[in-house]
Structure formats: structure tokens, C-alpha cells
């Protein structure tokens, strides 16, 4: 069967249109999708790398600060469980008192209470009663502040002429017990 010129032209045009559609769906569309994925991945990686670089700088800054602080306060460590921390602290308080010339009358730990910033931590206190001159009191406080685990002096009362009687409360952060360890937990 002979095709007329018009039929041949229509066939050619139809073939070209089909070819264009096929090229689009088989070539261009997957290529664009691949390119979009590549651009998205590149952007995500670029953001991650920027974050990593910022963190690296921040980490370097913190590392310097931590080492400076450790030189100043003796050591920075993760809070330990209550019993372990209080035992260690009591020994350190006694040692510091002896080294500072403080006449230690008593060092009484209190129960741990919640630490508002972090539920995994609790705050315990040690109440110290002693007698000493003011100079020795400040030596003692300086020694406490170089003791690992001591957060701060929470209260201090100096009474008597020349600072004879000292009442001191120091705070210590301890690790909060796991929920299963809590005897009051349901």
C-alpha cells in the first residue's frame, strides 16, 4: 500500500513527537531527578560540613577553657552516685580542713534533692561546723574549691571576734539514681 505524501508527513511528525516524549521520559526526566537528588545531597552535606567546622572551632575553644578551668579547680568529672560521691567528699573535706588548720567539729551530709537543670543529677550538701581564724577559713574554702566534685559554698557564717565559729554548707552534684532504683517509684 502506497502512502500519500500527507500520510508520510503525518507519520514523520508523529514519530518525531513520540521520539521527543520518549527522550523526555527515558532520558531528560530521570536525568533531572538525578540532578535534583545530587543538588539536595550536596546542600545537606554542605550544611553538615559547616556544622562540623563550627563544632570543631567551638570544641577547640571549650577544650582550652576546660584545661584552664582544670588548672584552676583541680579537675572536672562526671558526678558519681550519691554514696560514692559523699564518701569521697567527706574524706576530702577532712583532709582540706587539716591542711588549712581548721578545727573541724562536724561534717554532715544531707539527703540529695532535685537539681533543677538536669533530671539526671541531684544536689547533695555537706554541713560543716568548725572553729578557725578567718584566714584559715579562706584557706579552707580555697582548698575546697580546688577539690574535684565541689560545686560551691552555699552558705557560710562567721561569728565570734576574729572569726572563731564557722558554719559552712557546701553543695555537691551527684548522679540521680535510675528510676528502677527509686524505692518510691510505682
Amino acid at each position, binding site marked *: 500500500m502506497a502512502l500519500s505524501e500527507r500520510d508520510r508527513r503525518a507519520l514523520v511528525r508523529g514519530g518525531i513527537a513520540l521520539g521527543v516524549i520518549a527522550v523526555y521520559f527515558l532520558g531528560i526526566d530521570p536525568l533531572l531527578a538525578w540532578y535534583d537528588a545530587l543538588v539536595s545531597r*550536596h546542600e545537606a552535606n554542605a550544611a553538615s560540613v559547616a556544622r562540623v567546622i563550627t563544632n570543631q572551632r567551638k*570544641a577547640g575553644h571549650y577544650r582550652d577553657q576546660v584545661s584552664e*578551668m582544670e588548672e584552676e579547680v583541680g579537675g*572536672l568529672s562526671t558526678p558519681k552516685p550519691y554514696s560514692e560521691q559523699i564518701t569521697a567528699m567527706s574524706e576530702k573535706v577532712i583532709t582540706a580542713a587539716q591542711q588549712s588548720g581548721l578545727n573541724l567539729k562536724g561534717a554532715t551530709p544531707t539527703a540529695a534533692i532535685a537539681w533543677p537543670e538536669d533530671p539526671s543529677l541531684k544536689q547533695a550538701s555537706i554541713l560543716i561546723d568548725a572553729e578557725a581564724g578567718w584566714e584559715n577559713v*579562706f584557706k579552707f*574554702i580555697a582548698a575546697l*574549691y580546688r577539690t574535684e566534685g565541689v560545686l*560551691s559554698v552555699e*552558705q557560710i557564717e*562567721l561569728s565570734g571576734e576574729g572569726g572563731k565559729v564557722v558554719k559552712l554548707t557546701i553543695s555537691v552534684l551527684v548522679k540521680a539514681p535510675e528510676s528502677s532504683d527509686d524505692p518510691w517509684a510505682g
Partner: protein
Amino acid sequence: MGEPTVIGLHSCGSALRQARLRRVAGRIEILALETASLPSGAAQADAGGPGSAPEGQGQTSPGPGAKRARGTLTAGSAECVASMPAPDVMTRCWTFPEADDARCRQMVAHRLESDLPVPIDQVVWGYRRAGPASSREFGTWVLAQAARNDRVGRHMSSLSAAGFQIDALTTEAEALAALCRHGLQLGEASGTEALILATDAEWVIAVLIAGVVRSVRRVHVEPDQLERACLQCRQWIDADQPVHSLERVLWCAPEEMADARQVLAETMGIMVKPVEPADDLIEAGGGRISTDRLARFGPAIGLALAGLFERGDMIRLAGQPEEAATPRRQRIERILARPWRWTAVAGAGVILAAVIHVGALAWETRKMDRLLDAQDQARSAMATLGPKIRAMQQLQRYRIDVEGIVADLCSPIPESMVISSIRLSRERGLIIKGTAGDLKTSFALAEALRKNDRFAEVQTGRTEPGKGGGFTITAELVGVEKLSSFSGRGGPWR
């Protein structure tokens, strides 16, 4: 910018053959091919030399099928390139050493002066560098052509009388050379060859060496005396270059003249090869030009081709002074002459840029992947630093500088004052109790504490008024972070 259009005007006796060509998208389009007759006076004045064979048997009035030249192809801003009849032009070829244009022109003038039978000031002349000399010689091969002033003037007048303003008057040799270079499929031309444009009445014969036309001649042909015409053709070629040195004879003629080609081949003793028009030389309708029209209008087409492609190089004997195109303009014109090529280059550049862009993206992504993998290992090392940072921040935020506070407190205490107790607490601030002989000193101390940045809300009061100068000072501690949940010893500390 419009495509340049050039009219080639080839006068042959009283006939003026005209070809109007333009360049379109890298092809050469023949807009019109016409034959007109020169005005009678002009044709008589321009009647050729001994070798010329005027078309129409010497008639000077227009033939029945011919048009008057005036007003046919002169419209528009097309450039007109015409040729001097070959018998009026003297052609020489020399080998010169390499030299700049000024020096080369000087050398040509000297040689012409010695070669010409007339004083050089009676001729107009031009030259072109035809390429490097043969391998046995050094330097440049130079083609020089000259014509007498009066002949040139007469020819220009005749064309002017026909209504044409000629931009460039060159030679038939230049026309046929341009036709060979741009209008015919000849292949590589290196040796000696002859080109014959044959019509039923006249043959135009050109001898070429390495693509340069050395001589042009016309042979009048009687239909029943083909052998005589072929013999004339052979003798004439032999007079210029030995026939045995010819590499080929190129034949451009209507198909019905195949017998003539056969006879010529037998006479010359060499193969006569038919030539075809170049593929990019097309008629206005898009078809190829017939060999009949090509043979008849070949020199006119060649002139138009020379105007299109070799404006700056062709030998100019007269015409409008050539506009000196700056090198920058020439470069731009060269670029614009091939728009498709540059479009293709731009397209290739875009594709290359896209490939480089995608390649760079992929490479960067891979590199960042590797960097992030390495960072995962470094992150675990950083994790150990986290608790220490938190501990440090807690100390910075919550540790009370007891020594500093007490030092700031003690410095303004006067000698006369006795401090019985100092109480410092995160939650309750500062409480000082003591006695002073003069109560003003307690106010002075309170005032001094107010001025210190560490203390705020400083209050002073008397205690035990009956017992003398007892006082109490209370103050808030500035910069000490309070803990709402902190309960101290479990109750108010007294």
C-alpha cells in the same frame, strides 16, 4: 545585519551577463542570472581585442531576448564587481622573496616597468600573493595584472552608461579563479590544469597553475566545426603551457555537448573531466544550478563570488576606493559569516559547562561524604569532653566567689567597728552584724557597700538600741545564681 549581496558583471562584446548572489546561512544563493546588452556606443567602444568574439555576432543593439542593462539589477545597495575583458589585461607571475606589502608592491612596480611595452604611468595594475613558491624556490608567488588607463576608463564609462556604479573592476582571470575556488567541485588543485566553460557559441578557456588563473581566452565555435574549435583550443593552451604538462582538463558545459567533450578529449589526448557546481551554490528556489547556466554565466558568477569571498584580496584595477576594514571589524565579520558554527560552539560550551558543573557537584559531594565519615570518628572523641564542659559551665554559673565577696566587704570596714558575725548565703544574701561606737560608721559602711557592684538592696538598721551601737546590714548578692529548689539545712538558718 543583512546578508551581503554582490552583483557580478561580465561583459562579452555587447552582451552584459549579470549574476546576483548572496550568502545565506553558509550557502551561496543565486538570486538572478540575466543577460542584457550594453548601450550601442558603449559596446562599440568596449569591443574587445583580437581574441574576442562578441556575442550576437557583433550586433550592438539589443537582441530579441536580451534586456537593456539599465534598470535591471542595479536596484538596492548590492556591491557591483565587473571585469576587464581578458584581451585588455596583461598577466605576469613572478616569485619574490618574502616581503611586507609596501616592499612587495615596489618590487611588482619595478618588474612591470621592465616588462610592459608602455610606460607604467599609462597603465593601472594590481597584484595578489598567490601562495608560497614551489618547493624548489623560496619566497612568494605573486600574480600581477595590468591594463591600459584608457581601456579601463572606456570600460568603466560603458558600464556607467549602462547604469552600473562599479565598486570593483577586476579581471576575468580573478573571476574564473574565484569560480574555481568557491563555485565548482574541483578537489585539490596543485598542478597545471585547464578549465573550459563551453556554450554552443563560445568556449571560455582558462589555464590554471595551483589554482591561479594564468590566462583566459575565448574561442568562437561554429556548430558544424567542432574539430576546428578543439584544435584552436589545444593550440591556444599549448601556447601558454605544454599540453603534456596538463594534469587534467575540466569541462563545464550543457549535457547535450557530450560529443564536443569527446572530440576535445581526442584532440587533446587527455581525459576531459566534467565538473559539477559546488554543493553550497544554489538557485533561489533551492535547486542546484544547471551546467548550462553555469557555463553561460560562469565568469559573472565568479565575479560575484570574488566580491563575496575575496574582496580584500582580488586585483582591483578601478572602482570605488576600498573601505579599509579594521582588523577588529574583519574579525567580527569572519565570526558572523558562520553563525551555525558559532552556535554549535556555544552549544558545546554550554554542554561542557553543564558537565563540569555536575562533575564538580558530584566530586564535592563525595569529598564531603568522606569528610563527614572521618568526623564521625572525631565526634566520639569529642563526646568525652562533653561532661567536662557541662561541669565547667555549672561551676561558672553556680560557684559563689566567697573570698572575693568577703574581701570587697572587709575593705570599707573602719577600725572602730566590731563585726560579730557575717552570714553569706546563696538564697538569703549577706547579713552583717556588729557594733560601732558611732552609728554613723555603720551608715558609712552601708553606703560603701551600695557603691560596690557586688551588692544590691543594702539595708541598715540598729539592733539592741538600749545597749549602744549595735547594727545589722543586709544586702542582696549580685551575680549569684539562685536555686529555687535549694533548701539549705532544711529550714531558715539563724
